[in-house]
């Protein structure tokens, strides 16, 4: 059984909604900018990053509920509301018990978690901030979205490092196939905070050169350029009447050791041999090595070498950027167009030369620590 993607909402460095993402991907807008990150020892680092735009929440979310959401939660909750709006769904008419939320995030609400720790470091362990603690819980986004919409069905949060969104997608598809829900909001998101940037810098994973024009996902010698954002999708069972933007035919998550088998199983669901391959290629030497090996597996499974696109050069490379790639893939299928990848702030049109509008997209994601995920999206007939 497949599922239908009937709506999407996106908050990214390219702008506060899906229209901005679409325009940015088409035109090759460079969302990379130099930002300041204050590290724990007090010194400030200026480095390039893809920080998501601030979305307009007014009119979408009850101001009382909004006050209890931090920046990360707002991004995700606004994306959820956008997704429902693009699908033309009246929230008041949803069946609460048959509507759910499945969300993937590697790190959760980091700013609020840090604020909570700061509260008791500064004021003593008896005086932690209760509001910050309750908003630091890893599953807070799924809970806040459910609370905002009043939906009481499936509510899951998954975390699998850089494949957190893909893990959520697999669970959401299973939940629909099991008949657990009639409509799911499935999404992914992560936020870039100074602390996260410092983590990345200490691990020598992020680019600290402020004059770099933008992420080059195709050059493994360059450290990655982080970003943040969120994307949420309306996923409905195959039987629905609403117009679909794309169909999710299959999705799976496993380990690298079994990736060929997993990929073959998912790719077998493709009706046409003429499929477009997208991947999670981002930046950094280690990730590039993982990706190179994964690309070879993709070619072996598909029987020949194929071009592989990634759009992280447009919105940055972060743990749940897979959600934004999924958005790009849905937009390519629904718009019958192919977006050229970006690298170093410019469109690489030569990488899509000869590629027609895709009808089927196979996405392959190789995660750090031996994880692997893939999914197959097709255009609505």
């Amino acid at each position, binding site marked *: 059984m497949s599922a239908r993607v009937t709506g999407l909402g996106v908050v990214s460095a390219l702008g506060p909604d899906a229209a901005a993402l679409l325009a940015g991907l088409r035109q090759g807008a460079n969302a990379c900018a130099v930002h300041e990150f204050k590290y*724990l*020892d*007090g010194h400030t680092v200026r480095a390039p990053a893809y920080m998501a735009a601030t979305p307009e929440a007014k009119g979408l979310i009850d101001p009382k509920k909004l006050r209890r959401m931090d920046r990360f939660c707002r991004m995700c909750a606004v994306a959820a509301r956008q997704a429902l709006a693009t699908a033309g769904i009246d929230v008041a008419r949803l069946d609460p*018990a048959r509507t*759910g939320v499945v969300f993937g995030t*590697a790190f959760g609400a980091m700013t609020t978690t*840090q604020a*909570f*720790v*700061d509260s*008791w*470091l500064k004021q003593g*362990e*008896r*005086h*932690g901030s*209760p509001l910050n*603690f*309750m908003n*630091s*819980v*890893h*599953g*807070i986004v*799924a*809970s806040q979205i*459910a*609370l905002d*919409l*009043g*939906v*009481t*069905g*499936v*509510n*899951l*949060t*998954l*975390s*699998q*490092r850089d*494949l957190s969104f893909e*893990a959520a997608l*697999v*669970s959401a598809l*299973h939940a629909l*196939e*099991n008949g*657990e829900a009639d409509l799911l909001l499935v999404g992914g998101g992560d936020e870039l905070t100074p*602390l996260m940037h410092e*983590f990345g810098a*200490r*691990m020598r994973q992020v680019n600290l050169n402020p004059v770099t024009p933008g992420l080059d996902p195709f050059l493994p010698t360059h450290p990655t350029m982080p970003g943040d954002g969120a994307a949420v999708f309306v996923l409905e069972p195959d039987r629905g009447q609403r117009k679909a933007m794309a169909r999710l035919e299959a999705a*799976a*998550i*496993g*380990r690298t*050791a*079994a990736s060929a088998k997993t990929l073959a199983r998912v790719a077998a669901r493709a009706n046409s041999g003429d499929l477009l391959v997208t991947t999670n290629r981002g930046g950094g030497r280690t990730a590039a090595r993982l990706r190179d090996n994964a690309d070879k597996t993709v070619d072996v499974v598909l029987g020949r070498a194929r071009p592989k696109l990634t759009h992280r050069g447009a919105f940055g490379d972060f743990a749940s950027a897979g959600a934004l790639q999924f958005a790009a893939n849905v937009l390519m299928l629904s718009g019958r167009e192919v977006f050229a990848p970006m690298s170093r702030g410019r469109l690489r049109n030569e990488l899509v030369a000869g590629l027609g509008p895709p009808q089927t997209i196979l996405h392959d994601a190789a995660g750090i620590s*031996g994880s692997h995920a893939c999914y197959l999206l097709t255009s609505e007939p």
Partner: protein
Amino acid sequence: MPTRAVAITGLGLVGAVGSSVAAWRAAAAGEKSGLKRLTLFESELAAEIPVGQYDGDLPADFAAARRPLTRREFKRMSRGDLLALVAAAQATGEAGLSQTALSQGGVYLGQSVCGTFSSERYYVESWRNAQNGVAQPRAGVNALYVHEPAQSVDVLAREFGLGGPCTSFMTACSSGANAIGRAALLIARGEAEVMLAGGADSLSRITLNGFHSLQLVSPDGPRPFDAQRTGMTVGEGAGMLVLESLEHAKARGAKIPALLSGYGHSCDAHHLTAPHPQGAGAFAAMKDALRSAELEPGDIGYINAHGTSTLDNDRTEALAIARLFGDAAVPVSSTMRFFGHTLAASGAMKAVLCVEALRQRKLWPNLGLRTALAEAQLDLVREIRQAPGLKHVLSNSFGFGGNNAALVFTRVDP
């Protein structure tokens, strides 16, 4: 459950009362709580509130259950990873699965703060060093690497050579139960033959100070369902189950103490921390679990309740139980005073206790109970009770965000 039956063939447990299912049986028989004074880290709260701390040697436990860890491996693991590993080693050891079977299996692990004990130390040291003008924290990047919840999943996948679906579920205190329920669904629908499933969480400053900030922690320890209860106790631990399709387990001649026969799940959509005042979400999750097990309320012989001993949880859970099952119609107990509230591990540890209840045909005591709460009539189990006809048991797990999960287990007669 849809289509295929799901067998439980291995159990692993580590927590404040010890590191084995046998340690649990001894604690239950002696009605001995594992709660104690916090020594794992320095805390202003240590003298005031007890915790459910595991005092054993986790690397030694793992060595006894499976193999010794190298120094390098140990350095790269969080306390949460070790708790998960020990419980998983016990469970896989009991199940006696071949490496071939494991290589086709996966792991679903429930967590809430698993690596935080390591990463918060890095953060706190960095913060204090910054106050004192010292730049570098002592903790290295390993502390950061292990922060991610998926670290424990990756550790388990590598250790047991798992090739199937591996991921972590983060639904606060219902994480472990949801991980088990989702893993069972995966087997039931034929996506996997074997899954390791459970939950693990270690004590950390964040959880201790967090629950204290919410004024939910009791200086006297938990007294679940007691009229005079004053709150919960934070604990740590892990529970792991080996789940298999019944066909797979039978084909290899495995001992099958129980089936995971039902899973229900709901969201309150009411408040970030407080449960629905009438326990609507708890009721829905239990009802959903019974429906998926194709059972009626009267079929359930014992409920291992969430029973955290907070004012709100116990009242609303009692109301939901009474509404679904009737007044005092089914024996109920909470085992929180043995382990403390082990957060994401809690649902998984209770799952282990439920299977053990079916295996031993015993109902576990609700330690700490003096006078039962008045809001609902429950048949609370005050001391170990023999239950010769015990066939189906239900376990509840509820988390922040109103995230509710219920599991049903069914005894398989040898």
